[in-house]
Each structure stands twice: as C-alpha cells, then as structure tokens.
C-alpha cells in the first residue's frame, strides 16, 4: 500500500491512461460498426469507413500525445519537489 502511495503520480497517470483506453475502445467499437444502409452509394459508404478510421486514429494519436505530455509534466513536478526538499535542508 505504501508503495502505491509513493508511486501516486504514476498510479494516477496509469489510471487515467486506462480509463481513456476504455473510452477509446468504446468509441472505436462504436465507430467500426459497418454501415449497411441500402440508400448509401458504394462511394459514400467507403467515405464513411475511411472517415471512421481517421477519427479513430486521431483519438489514438491524442491519447499518445497527452500521455507523453503528462509524463513530461510529472518529471518536472517530481524534480521541483526534489529541488524544494534540497532547499529546505540547512
């Protein structure tokens, strides 16, 4: 338990990444449902299909980018605490 407490920024990040991943899967799962409307032409169906892939990819990229940014912020935050601790020492 104490180990989890010490790792709290990383536990928080991993939890956020996991929740986003579940959301992403829900979104992708919803988007990948095939379009089977007889009124749509082949070209339009294809266009919707490609659009869905692009939207899914965009969300995956956003997931990776935000993950990378948060890692950078955690590193800066951890270092700032280290600096504060060293300054408070006589």
């Amino acid at each position: 338990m104490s180990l989890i407490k010490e790792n709290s920024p990383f536990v928080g990040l991993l939890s956020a990444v996991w929740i986003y991943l579940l959301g992403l899967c829900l979104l992708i799962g919803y988007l990948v449902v095939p379009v089977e409307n007889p009124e749509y032409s082949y070209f339009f169906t294809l266009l919707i299909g490609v659009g869905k892939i692009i939207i899914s990819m965009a969300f995956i990229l956003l997931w990776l980018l935000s993950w990378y940014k948060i890692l950078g912020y955690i590193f800066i935050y951890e270092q700032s605490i280290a600096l504060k601790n060293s300054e408070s020492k006589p």
Partner: protein
Amino acid sequence: MTINLVQIIYISIIGFVTTLIITPLVGKYMRSIGKIGHDVHKVDRPEVPESGGIGFMVIYLILLLVGIFIAPNTISKYRLAVMLTVLTLVTLLGLYDDFRQLSAIMKPGLLVILSLPVLIFQKIGDEVLVSPTPILPFIGETRLSIAYWFLAVFVVSVPSNASNMLDVMNGSMSGSGMLISLTAFIASFIIPLEEESLFIGRYASLTLFAVLFGFWIYNRYPAKIFAGDTGSLGTGAAIGLIAIYGRIEFVMVVALLVHIMNSFSILSSLKGLRERHDIQERPVKVIDGVVHASADEKAPITLVRLLVARKPLNEKEIVNRILSLVFFVCVLALITAYIMRRSIL
C-alpha cells in the same frame, strides 16, 4: 478431450524445478566463456554472468512442445506449433544480439519479420488459428478485418522490445513477466472463451510463469545472473503470442501499460530508435550504490529516471516500485477482463 488443469499445474511445477536446476549451470557456463557484465547499480560493480535467459527459454520451448501432445484439439496444437517456431527464432535472435550486437533499427525490424508466421499461418486447412475478431470491453466481439492484421504484425516486436527496455534492474524484467503471465492465466478463467483459446491462455501462461519464477529466484536483487536479450526478447514475444492466441489482446495491452509507458517515453524523448551504447547522455547516474536522476535535458526520460526524480533511491527500492506499478496495471487488466466478460455474456 477437455483441458486438464491438474496436468498443466504438474507440467508447470516440472518447468519451475528444471529452471531452478539449470539456471546456475547456465550462469557457470557463461562465466567460463567470459560472457559477463558489470552490475553497475552496485557499489562494488560485481561481475554477473549474462545471457542467462537461454536456460529458461529452452525449458519453455520444451514445455510448449509437450503442450502440443497434450493439447485438447487440433487448433491448440497448431497454435502451440506456431508459438514454438516464432519463439525459437526470437530466442536465437536474442542470443545473436547478446553475442554479436544488432543495430537499434535491425532488432525491431527482424522481430517484425519473425512475427510473420502468425500472419502466414492464420488458417491451416479448415482450422482458423487467428481470427480478426478481438474482444473489446463494453463492445464484445468486434470484427477488425484490416486494422487487426496491421496490429498483428507488431505482436512480437512491440512486447519484446518493451520487455527488453524494462530489463534495467535486478529482477525487473523477470518479476514483471511473472506478474503479467499470471494475469493472463487468471484472465483465462474470467473471460468465457472457446476451448482452444482457453488452453493457450492457461497452458502457455502458467508454464511461462513457472520458468520465469525459477529464473527470478537467481535474477532478483542482488542478481546472480542476467537474462540478456535472449531472455527479455523471448519473454516479451511469449506474452504477445499468448495475447493473440489466447484471445486476451486487450487484457494484455493493459497489463503491459508500464512497459509501454517506459518504451514510449524513451523513444519519444530520444526521438527515434537508438542503441543503448550509442546514447551519450545517461538517464541516471549511480553514486555509492544510489541511483540519481540525470539533470541533463538531453538524457532520455526512462521510467527509472522518473522514479528517482523526486528522491534518489537504491536499486532494490526502484525494483520494488517498478513491480508495484506492474502489479497495479495487472489489477486494472483483471478488471478489464471482467468488463469484457460482462460484454460477451
């Protein structure tokens, strides 16, 4: 024929005991041929035999061969045969890398090529070995006709390299591999799947856990042997193959989140693939056996550097923190497995 769990447990125990006996002998042999490395995180930098992973990987390959004979159906036999082929090639590649050194681009490139049997043998006769229908939480079974095959190309390459990149401290790779293989084993009891997937999920993961446990006893802090690329690439590849043939892809992605985080942050901070020896700016520095984060902005942001950024830690503390994070994501993976169960029932 049904899955005989007692038989799987017996075989796993044999695998554990054999690894326990073989590993020190492999260590002695590696030392005798001069295959040793310095444990740089200790004050006295002791010499430790390298490439010890060959011992447990050979035992694991033998156990997979045994699995082919006890598998309850033809699909399981075929799946194990492909696993055996791919893992033999990955082990040989790891061994070559340990002794001859492959370039940072060549290694993942070759691992992608080695995963091709998974795609080539997606169907043998009437038996479908891999189907592009992964189970996703909330959705259940989903057909990903194109995306699945694109991702399947990386089924060996990504987990192998991720496992390799986390093999930085005593017992970090073997310990985390143990936790992930145990998660795969438990997940196979949570998600109701067809017999052939359940057999792979249970047999391949429990035997992997057993051999890794046997190896971890010597590899844990203070390490008496290192796994080398032979062990770390092989372990990662086995996890990837269990994910795809056990149909627990999503569970394994969650269980590998710490590995992915480490690899992703290294690759993004280095802006591409680079060999360990080519990186001038080290992420951490060791002073009197205590690991300090590097203040150099150009140094790669590794998980270890992040963990010691606030406070310098010794190796044992770092390993405990890495393993506690892996344990945490494994719990998340099991919750995911439960959500998946609810989605398909």
